[in-house]
């Protein structure tokens, strides 16, 4: 709460100017200064615990078929002779073939043992070693280190909270269909009734700014009830692509639906389908030039149990998979150190043993994308992290 407050408090200070500018027809996005870096970064949080072993399947492991039971026989595409890709991600195979889709296997956050979604997600987004004292998100701390970040450099999209972007650096929270258009008098009066509230006033200023200052002529006869927008992730991905073609450099949003406790051969497909659709929509929307300098990272709070449970699904686990896509990344391979599925190699004799920290992979990408140094990444963005050797995730 305080983290969002402080961020919007920052906006509130500039709102005295920014807001009237936003409401003015003279306001256009072009008036923003050049962006602080050139590579486009998209961070997708996969909420619910994606089963990495079902997404990037270790078909070459001798224990694989026995441990995964019915999940082992779903077909799909061979990636490199050892790993295979879940069939629901096959729309992304052209990207793999061009080296623009990759994975990091057997990674996790430092979160262990209690296997709570909610603490797991909080830690993933905080980017810290534990949750004590976690106040802001690692993407926001990254923005705090880069000079020249503007109000629309970074976007948190959708209707859910994105703690990964919360913090003191300015971030635009938005959803594509949220445009607010009111008469100039209603705008002034809304500002008046909200002026003393430290939460409402900056949120209003930001809503008006992001609506592009499209003031309505006359009364509100045309105002329609708000709606949430359908079409799954496509509108969000299209909006993200539109922003990233312009001055935005960082977009983050969630893709949900990974908590496949039962009947996983059926229940995992819709979430993977959404993820594939999100990436293809970004690819198409960005166009070849911007796609060529885009890095998409998709990460989840934990992997799932190595064994299929008693109901055709998997329970909360530890090590999982991070997905990489975009022309800026070195795809066409499964990165990471594979721990094996031998009983003794498992974590707690039930989960995939994490051999890498998901934060280290993200840190190396940030280093290349925004030119941050190792000291800043290990000291500020991911405090206490040892980035280890360069996994060379970027081209």
């Amino acid at each position, binding site marked *: 709460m305080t983290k969002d407050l402080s961020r919007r408090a920052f906006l509130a200070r500039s709102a005295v100017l920014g807001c009237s500018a936003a409401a003015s027809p003279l306001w256009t996005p072009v008036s923003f200064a050049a962006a602080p870096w050139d590579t486009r970064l998209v961070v997708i949080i996969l909420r619910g615990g994606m089963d990495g072993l079902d997404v990037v399947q270790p078909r070459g492991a001798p224990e694989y078929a026995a441990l995964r039971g019915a999940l082992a026989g779903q077909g799909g595409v061979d990636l490199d002779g050892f790993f295979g890709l879940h069939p629901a991600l096959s729309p992304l195979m052209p990207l793999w073939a061009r080296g623009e889709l990759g994975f990091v296997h057997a990674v996790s956050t430092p979160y262990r043992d209690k296997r709570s979604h909610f603490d797991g997600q909080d830690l993933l987004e905080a980017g810290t070693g534990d949750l004590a004292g976690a106040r802001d998100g690692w993407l926001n701390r990254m923005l705090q280190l880069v000079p020249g970040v503007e109000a629309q450099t970074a976007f948190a999209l959708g209707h859910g909270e994105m703690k990964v972007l919360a913090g003191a650096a300015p971030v635009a929270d938005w959803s594509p269909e949220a445009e607010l258009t009111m008469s100039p008098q209603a705008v002034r009066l809304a500002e008046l009734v*909200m002026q003393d509230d430290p939460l409402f006033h900056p949120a209003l200023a930001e809503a008006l700014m992001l609506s592009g200052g499209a003031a309505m002529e006359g009364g509100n006869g045309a105002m329609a009830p708000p709606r949430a927008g359908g079409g799954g992730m496509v509108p969000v991905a299209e909006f993200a692509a539109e922003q990233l073609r312009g001055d935005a450099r960082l977009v983050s949003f969630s893709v949900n639906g990974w908590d496949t406790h039962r009947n996983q051969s059926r229940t995992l497909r819709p979430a993977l389908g959404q993820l594939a659709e999100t990436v293809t929509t970004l690819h198409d929307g960005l166009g070849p030039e911007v796609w060529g300098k885009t890095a998409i990272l998709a990460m989840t709070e934990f992997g799932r149990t190595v064994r299929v449970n008693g109901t055709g699904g998997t329970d909360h686990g530890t090590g999982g998979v991070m997905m990489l896509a975009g022309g800026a990344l070195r795809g066409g391979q499964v990165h990471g150190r594979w721990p094996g599925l031998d009983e003794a190699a498992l974590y707690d004799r039930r989960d995939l043993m994490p051999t890498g920290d998901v934060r280290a992979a993200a840190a190396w990408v940030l280093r290349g994308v925004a030119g941050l140094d190792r000291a800043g990444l290990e000291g500020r963005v991911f405090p206490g992290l040892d980035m280890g050797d360069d996994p060379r995730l970027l081209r």
Partner: protein
Amino acid sequence: MSFSSDHAEIRFGCGLSPQVAPAPSLEAMLAGLDGPDRMAARFPMVSHRDYWQRRAQWLELRKQRRKASGARADELADQAMNMSRGFRADLLRGLGQTVLRWSETQSGFRERLALFWADHFTTVGKSGPQRSAVSIYVDAAIRPNLSGRFGDLLVAAVTHPMMLTYLDQRVSVGPQSAFARRKGKSRGLNENLAREVLELHTLGVDGPYGQADVRQLAELFTGLTIGRTGTREFRPGWAEPGEEVVLGRRYGGNPARLEAVQQALHDLAVHPATADHIARKLAVHFVSDAPDPGLVAHMAARFLATGGDLRAVYAAMLEHPAAWDDGPGNVKPPFDFIASACRALAVAPERIETAKESQVNRLILQPIRAMGQFWQRPTGPDGWPEADAAWITPQGLSARLRWAMAVPRRLLADLPDPRAFVDTALGAAAPEPVRFAARAAETRAEAVGLVLAAPAFQRR
């Protein structure tokens, strides 16, 4: 700060109403929790029996359709589609009925508690028919147990068919059970419900339990499933043989019985970690995102002293001075905002009862979704966020403003005089800028919208 009836109705109830006087005292607020559930009787949901019969027909139609071909398949598909529309209509009607309960009640605290506990024990439907059944679950498991012992509420919610389905208990089977041995390796344990009972429903994530307790509780839960008529059933043949140890206590044994599950839940219900967890959660929900530690401790102590008597815990909350702190209270979640707005606007019940489904969808369900709350479909079993900042985002506030300006005139034949509406909605404590805005707006719809969008109405 001490009791004031307007403050009490805004903070602990469904907001001010021009037709219903607020409870005059703390005693009256608590007394409103006793006696028959008038709102559930006046604005009922469909019956479980009716739901389950139609669900069975729907499943049968889909089965036949898969076997059929040609014109017969089309005909069956149409019939199944019509039934699906019926379930969707039930869901929307349930939303409308819940708004009306808020709008018409004499005991706003009771409605608030019903929503609080429905969220604490979140269930989400996984299919079209099931999505319409969440309201049935709330009326059966939650509402009758709002002010008795927490243990009774816990047992009712956790063992209700809706929860057994949502958190996969329905299909969990003891790995060494008679059933699993007959079936070979194809059936076994699912630890989803056991984990969430410990983490969310009772002890809290920082509570004194580990993976072994999750596993043991999951084994203890085996046998608990759903029967043919959609009601709870205990099948000893599905249960893991032998005893289980949860938090150091032994449960179960042979033969496996439902009573052992209930005993474990009752023990978890009165654990000190549960007392702290529930006290804090209530204080966060009703009073502040960062509640006074003295308030939480007072409530937790009452919880422990009374063995989880919820009415006594509520009394402990209401009698504590920190519950009445002045200053900005919590932001209303989207449903609460819209329902309390309908109450302040005195929307006629017939307007919502006779509204077409598409209207309920357009005027209520889609708007609260745009505000960040997809009715009865939170993304996880932890339910909706409590933090004010989770709701007052630019996109969320945009949707609140748009609803406030666009929807009231669609719900009322005549909008109220905005200057009088300030007093109706906010009481005597209305801030001067809101009074000014109500006078200065260019249209009546904008004026009413500004009153409803003002933090003075959005907060408690």
